[in-house]
């Protein structure tokens, strides 16, 4: 069972376009993180959001945590070829024996063409 559903699974766009990736769940998360992974490498953390309704900006990337802490979105403005990669959302639920693990979505493969 996939706790976090990411959409779209694949995204292919031209340089300069805007895009949004969604991460949804029926579960409430204590925190949610976004990672970016390039071929042959491990995921690299982009941002952590903790508070419901929180918005964080990282240059052209805007991350939002839903008010109910069940969903999140990643918006990229004016995409560049260097943004190409696999974007993964991951949520943490702090309760009982599941302390410490992250639940990952399946990822969104973004390709930005010059």
């Amino acid at each position, binding site marked *: 069972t996939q706790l976090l559903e*990411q959409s779209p699974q694949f995204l292919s766009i031209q340089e300069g376009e805007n895009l949004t990736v969604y991460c949804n769940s029926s579960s409430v998360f204590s925190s949610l993180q976004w990672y970016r992974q390039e071929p042959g490498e491990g995921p690299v953390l982009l941002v952590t959001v903790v508070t419901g309704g929180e918005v964080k900006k990282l240059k052209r990337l805007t991350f939002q945590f839903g008010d109910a802490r069940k969903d999140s979105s990643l918006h990229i403005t004016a995409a560049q070829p260097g943004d190409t990669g696999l974007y993964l959302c991951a949520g943490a639920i702090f309760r009982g*024996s599941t302390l410490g693990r992250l639940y990952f979505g399946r990822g969104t493969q973004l390709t930005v063409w010059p």
Partner: protein
Amino acid sequence: GAGVSQSPSNKVTEKGKDVELRCDPISGHTALYWYRQSLGQGLEFLIYFQGNSAPDKSGLPSDRFSAERTGGSVSTLTIQRTQQEDSAVYLCASSLVGGIVPSYEQYFGPGTRLTVT
């Protein structure tokens, strides 16, 4: 400082053989995680260590899989009698604090690509 390192980077083995994968976490990181990633898929949780103990090993797919951590540092993931479906990239991550802190960051190694022929 040094990041998370994993060895070997690639491993090709015959079906039925045992393999050991190694992870060296960032120095001082108390929590260590193992994940598995199949081609084009997200990350599948395997096991989590806090210090040398594993409070959550619920993701290990079968009793052929085991892991240990010694000295609160290096961890080894062992797969016995490997099967073709074990082929995947095995990723290790560490974090400074695991548990009741509401936000924490996991730092990943480059992974070990395991191919079972």
